[in-house]
């Protein structure tokens, strides 16, 4: 689609960010130096838990990959990974418990997929980069900001690619919305507020494992201790421990706060946060967190509110909203959760609809005004629109495709470690703000590598 211009290139993005006094630094490496052509890319999968399976189901659809090795401390997960790969490619990969052993023994590896618990992301990514592999690592980059910094340094030191799994950055619907609708057609007018949430039910937030755990899934205690877990509960539920993860704001919020920073093109200047253990009294991390980021963008101030609740699914699950003077865009990885509202009085969009930039969305008729409403206080209901299409691949696939295209030298990374760091850095300060009940004004030390 040649005549649809990309309105915010990476260079523009960087320039704009620098122009606002924020250092969103240039990435060292966005594509591999040499193209692999049609040669097979030899891949190792580090960690074969649930998220790795999600990724593997996408990787299976990408041609030209050979899965050479799998690494997991759990024998049952390792067997599962080896089995799934054998079924897929007809030959079994070599299985390892220990990543050092794998990196020492396996020759000819080109890339690694790191899908281990958050506190292992940084050590595993750094080891792979230093061993000369390109790395795709799941988000959140790390459980501490210093560990995330190590990943950026390792990427730049090694000259290898390091893509972080903020998969929305490669999602066609997100990219189209940002480049064509927000920047191109400027349909929002001035964006003044953002709003995002991930609300998850108790059932989905409950502890995993316990007495129901099948004995084949149990990892011996000495193995757990060797890899930083106290016991099986920690191993199965690392997301609720402070030394092992950043908690819900990191686990769930990182995806969406990244979208705030990506769409607005700048980093926030302060955060106010609060949270608490309202239901899961014994968890180390808060079970619900609410936070507010203040931004200074080239177009004016923006306030962005984000909440992550692990105690209720009420409120339509997860989405991000960008609310402007002329329109609001609510976007989500779940396509039916997305909608665009045109403000009454904004320029007419009939031409955009006719040319296919948007489609009209059928919405139910509003209910008649009730007796207890003060009609003069109400705004006219906004018209509803939708994106012109969807996309028919698993959510993580475009981001993985982008990574391997970059490995082949045919694309630039959509979310390299440095950009991911600059977007994730403010998230590391949400928990400290919530714990201290104090706002945090961001300085270079807070946000920079």
């Amino acid at each position: 689609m040649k005549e649809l211009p990309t309105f915010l290139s990476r260079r523009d993005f960087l320039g704009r960010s620098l122009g606002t006094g924020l250092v969103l630094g240039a990435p060292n490496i966005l594509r591999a130096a040499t193209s692999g052509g049609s040669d097979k890319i030899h891949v190792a999968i580090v960690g074969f838990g649930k998220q790795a399976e999600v990724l593997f189901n996408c990787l299976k659809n990408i041609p030209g990959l050979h899965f050479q090795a799998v690494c997991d401390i759990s024998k049952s997960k390792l067997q599962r990974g080896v089995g799934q790969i054998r079924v897929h490619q007809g030959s079994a990969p070599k299985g390892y418990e220990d990543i050092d052993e794998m990196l020492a023994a396996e020759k000819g590896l080109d890339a690694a997929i790191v899908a281990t618990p958050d506190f292992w992301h940084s050590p595993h990514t750094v080891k792979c980069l230093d061993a000369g592999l390109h790395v795709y690592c799941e988000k959140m980059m790390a459980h501490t900001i210093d560990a995330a910094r190590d990943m950026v340094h390792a990427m730049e030191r090694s000259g290898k690619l390091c893509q972080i799994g903020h998969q929305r950055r490669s999602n066609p619907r997100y990219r189209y919305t940002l480049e064509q609708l927000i920047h191109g057609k400027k349909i929002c007018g001035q964006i003044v507020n953002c709003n995002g949430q991930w609300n998850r039910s108790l059932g989905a937030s409950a502890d995993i494992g316990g007495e129901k755990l099948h004995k084949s899934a149990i990892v011996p205690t000495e193995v757990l201790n060797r890899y930083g877990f106290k016991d099986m509960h920690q191993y199965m539920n690392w997301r609720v421990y402070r030394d092992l993860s950043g908690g819900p704001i990191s686990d769930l919020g990182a995806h969406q706060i990244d979208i705030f920073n990506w769409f607005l093109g700048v980093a926030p200047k302060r955060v106010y946060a609060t949270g608490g253990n309202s239901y899961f009294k014994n968890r180390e991390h808060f079970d619900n967190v609410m936070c507010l980021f203040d931004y200074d963008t080239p177009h004016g101030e923006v306030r962005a509110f984000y909440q992550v609740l692990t105690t209720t699914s009420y409120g339509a699950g997860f989405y991000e909203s960008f609310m402007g003077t002329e329109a609001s865009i609510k976007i989500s990885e779940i396509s039916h959760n997305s909608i665009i509202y045109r403000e009454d009085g904004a320029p007419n969009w009939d031409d955009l609809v006719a040319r296919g930039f948007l489609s009209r969305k059928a919405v139910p008729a509003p209910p008649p005004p009730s007796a207890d409403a003060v009609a003069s206080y109400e705004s006219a209901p906004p018209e509803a629109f939708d994106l012109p299409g969807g996309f028919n691949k698993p959510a993580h696939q475009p981001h993985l495709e982008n990574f391997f295209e970059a490995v082949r030298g045919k694309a630039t990374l959509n979310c390299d470690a440095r950009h991911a760091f600059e977007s994730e850095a403010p998230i590391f300060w949400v928990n400290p703000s919530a714990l201290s009940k104090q706002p945090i004004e961001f300085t270079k030390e807070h946000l920079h590598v």
Partner: protein
Amino acid sequence: MPDFSTLSHPNPNTMSNEETCCSKDHNQLALIFGSLLLRLWLGVRALQTGIEKFAGTASSDAAIKIDGETNDYGLTAAESVKNYAMDHYHGVPQALMGKFEKEPLMPGFGLPLYDKLLGPTLLILGITILLGIAYRSSLFVLGLLYISLTWGLILIKEDGGVAWLGIHMIMIVGALALAQYNRLAILKKW
């Protein structure tokens, strides 16, 4: 005063042999039809339920046009269409699978096996019932299958589903009771 009662309600004891014979034929035809209808219903129900285990959706690969040109973002037509494929197979619906896995009385090895066998079993039973192959035994096995489903739904407190399967069981018992009137069968034995 003439007795009109026999006009509206003929007494079989006062009817001639010929009348009794015809009435029996009429009754038998009705029972044959009843048996056939039950056979068709239960057969179609089992067969199509088995087929639906292979149902899924496929999205269009066609890139949509924006401003007259094919977009290069990868945006495709949003509509998805239903299709059938071996890859779509799911014996036990995913939403229920998670609940069953948490049940202490559910044997760990049994659930994956049941998941694999449920669809093919329904397909086979649907075909045998529709074609009249070992009709009574097929109905009996179908009844056992519905009992197993009922047991699972009791565990996870899906009372609506239990009642729904109860209706199926009544229909199976009805079909077995009418099995002697079953016609057009390929294999009448068993």
